């Protein structure tokens, strides 16, 4: 499911609100969450999970292709910790296991 699929699904459940407005709401939710993380704020959504910014220290890395040492600067990375309810919801599905998702790392 993509963001537009999410907007679609939410709009279907709320027929009194236009799809355009639903789109604005969904965008605002994620924008305000991104802004909160930007100022270093922790986000906690009950039953869903929490987001937190962690600082990764600068380190010496290596270009895996050439073996050349490169300097990797310190950076801030968002971390997500799944909430108890969602964790159980995800794990509680039928015994058929999720097809191994490795190599399925496309970014948006």
């Amino acid at each position, binding site marked *: 499911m993509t963001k537009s699929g*999410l907007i679609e699904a*939410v709009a279907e459940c*709320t027929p009194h609100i236009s799809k355009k407005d639903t789109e604005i709401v969904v965008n605002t*939710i994620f924008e305000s969450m991104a802004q909160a993380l930007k100022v270093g704020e922790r986000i906690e959504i009950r039953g869903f999970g929490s987001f937190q910014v962690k600082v990764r220290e600068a380190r010496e890395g290596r270009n895996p292709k050439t073996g050349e040492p490169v300097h990797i*600067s310190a950076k801030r990375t968002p*971390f997500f910790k799944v909430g108890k309810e969602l964790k159980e*919801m995800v794990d509680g*599905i039928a015994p058929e296991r999720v097809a191994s998702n490795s190599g399925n790392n496309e970014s948006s």
Partner: protein
Amino acid sequence: MTKAEIVEQIYEQVGFSKKESAELVEKVFETIKETLARGEKVKISGFGNFVVRGKNARKGRNPQTGQEILLEARRVLTFKPSLVLKTILNDDGSVEVSVAETYER
């Protein structure tokens, strides 16, 4: 930030009533949860991807007693932040963003 504060943002920025804002925010997170519970991934462009991954059973150890235990196969949720989000967190100049930004585990 809590869900209540997100609702507040919707109320202020989009102009829905507090009740409608709360209903919509609730619905958005519920929909994401239900989708993930079906094992389907949720991709929010500009924010990140929530992906359900299967973990195989493996032997573990109770770190306190050293006793061996069997960890059963399970499904876990992982979040991969989008490049856009990672850039937002680093673009204020306080932390230098390096070329290695895209470097992943």
